[in-house]
């Protein structure tokens, strides 16, 4: 694909996202989107980023991580911290405010970058123990790290401690959420089709055989962790700065990590399309079940859990297995 064509695709995507964003915020003609639906769509976008990024570790590299919420927390808190405490100064550099125009673009890009980088550093810290640990032990270490991150955040008063980071400015919108989601999908897809991705696939299938074939397994695993954590950090940065959706240590516990795992498993572990589908379904489903909740309080989550078990018993490979949407167009 030529450079011109690539640039054209990027420009068209950005334009399309911008147009959607305008429609989203100001409506089309008399039609105005219901704020409740708008919120769910935004959450779908954030969860797509989370699910697709986790798919890199759990699906492609075959390592079992249950600490994704920890990376999301690191990135989210770092990004939000930057916006809240330095956003004003940064926006002034380009002569705008945090909430609108060029200022908001600069602040958003910088805060997401900082979020991604800090989460990637956390990913490196978690990835290094994976040099020695395998399977269940690795899983429990990732869980341990994410719990430690949560407790540490709980003890930092500057970011709100147990009450959550309520000082956050709501600068996230449709454009950024789906921009990052598309970026994540593109990155993970390109990795899957690259030499690096093939090597990760080899590690998943048989680590010893992969090593014998000359794949530097530990280095590849750590790299996968770092990239996945960085992407999750961006999702955290978006989530923390979404309107009336402050980050709080209670919501970033291991239940959140489990939610993301369930998304990729239901969609079909190892498939990017599956991760997108799973994230979408499992964000909308609990909301759709809210009507059940009004008649029988609390039954919604019981059904959700039951559905999960039945799914595992009757369709363990998930909705799509390892299939991709692009398989349909393969010549």
């Amino acid at each position, binding site marked *: 694909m030529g450079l011109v064509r690539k640039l054209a695709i990027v420009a068209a995507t950005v334009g399309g996202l911008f147009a959607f964003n305008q429609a989203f915020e100001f409506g089309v003609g008399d039609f105005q989107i219901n704020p409740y639906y708008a919120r769910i769509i935004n959450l779908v976008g954030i969860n797509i980023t989370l699910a697709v990024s986790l798919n890199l570790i759990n699906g492609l590299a075959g390592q079992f991580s249950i600490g994704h919420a920890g990376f999301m927390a690191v990135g989210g808190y770092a990004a939000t911290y930057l916006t809240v405490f330095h956003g004003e100064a940064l926006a002034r550099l380009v002569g705008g405010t945090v909430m609108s125009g060029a200022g908001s673009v600069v602040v958003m890009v910088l805060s997401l970058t900082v979020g991604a980088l800090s989460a990637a550093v956390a990913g490196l810290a978690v990835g290094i123990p994976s040099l020695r640990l395998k399977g269940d032990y690795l899983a429990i270490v990732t869980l*341990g790290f994410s719990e430690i991150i949560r*407790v540490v955040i709980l003890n930092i008063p500057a970011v709100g401690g147990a009450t959550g980071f309520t000082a956050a400015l709501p600068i996230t919108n449709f454009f950024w959420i789906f921009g990052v989601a598309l970026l994540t999908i593109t990155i993970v897809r390109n990795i899957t089709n690259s030499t690096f991705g093939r090597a990760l696939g080899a590690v998943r299938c048989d680590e010893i055989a992969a090593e014998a074939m000359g794949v530097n397994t530990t280095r590849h695993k750590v790299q996968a962790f770092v990239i996945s954590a960085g992407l999750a950090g961006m999702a955290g940065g978006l989530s923390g700065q979404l309107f009336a959706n402050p980050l709080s240590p209670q919501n970033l516990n291991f239940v959140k990590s489990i939610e993301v795992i369930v998304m990729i498993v239901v969609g079909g572990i190892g498939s990017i399309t599956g991760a997108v589908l799973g994230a979408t379904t499992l964000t909308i489903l609990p909301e759709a079940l809210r009507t059940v909740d009004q008649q029988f309080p609390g039954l919604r989550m019981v059904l959700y859990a*039951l559905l999960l078990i039945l799914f*595992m018993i009757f369709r363990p490979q998930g909705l799509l297995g390892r299939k991709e949407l692009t398989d349909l167009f393969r010549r």
Partner: protein
Amino acid sequence: METFLQQVINGLSLGAIYALIALGYTMVYGVLRLINFAHGDVYMLGAFAGFYLANALGLDANPSVLWAIVVTMGSMAICAGIGVLIERLAYRPVRHHPRLTALITAIGVSLLLEYGGQVVFGATPRFFPQMVRSETYAAGGVQITNQNLLIIVVALVVMLALEFIVHRTRIGKAMRATSYNLSVAKLMGINTDFVIAFTFALGSALAAAGGVMVALAIPRIDPLMGLMTGLKAFVAAVLGGIGNIPGAMVGGLVIGLMETWLSATAYSTYRDAVAFGVLILILLIRPSGLFGTAATEKV
């Protein structure tokens, strides 16, 4: 010195609870290589079963040690049944699927018990009736309540009983054989389905005993009480080397002692992190836990 001893006693009683629950994790992992995430919730169900039994017997008005034992036994029996039911309905159908599938099923069962508990028992905490009158003994400046003493004694008795079952009985031998190699055990004529069901019953009964004991000492019970305790007990099992019974006991005690010790310092808010911190440190030095044997991998 006295404060130190006091910390040790408090830590031992907390650690004994973790050890009781960790045993269930480690036994199930031993035979099935499955992290039974729902185990912490079985512990919660044990506390609730005890709550309803004790109320039905009217123990709040007239506490007695004898009836407390009956309630504990009853709760253990109920949870043993629940454990077998969970294994039969949720885990057996996915036993031959990839391990990730079984793990997610376990997570699903855990969520089901937690949210189901909130629907059935209500989300607000309940107060466990005082089945045994609280008394405090003091010796050499160290104080111990009879409930804490009871926890330590019960845990000790149960662990000895478990050691006996696993190493001195027929079913124990079958359990060890199944844990060593499930398909070969089957070929040798062992009814592995029964052995696995028995393991679940045993583990769940231990968790129920833990639940009732905790409820005696800290009488606030709620449907989510098993979440954090279960997680830490699991960490205790991994710490000792998962699949290893003495390891689970030592792991539970280590975590209990560390946590109590940290609670007394200025860093008490980091209490929930200490279990994981210790775990990561130990796994970095000994990747298969304190007593676990390193498995060599074959191609």
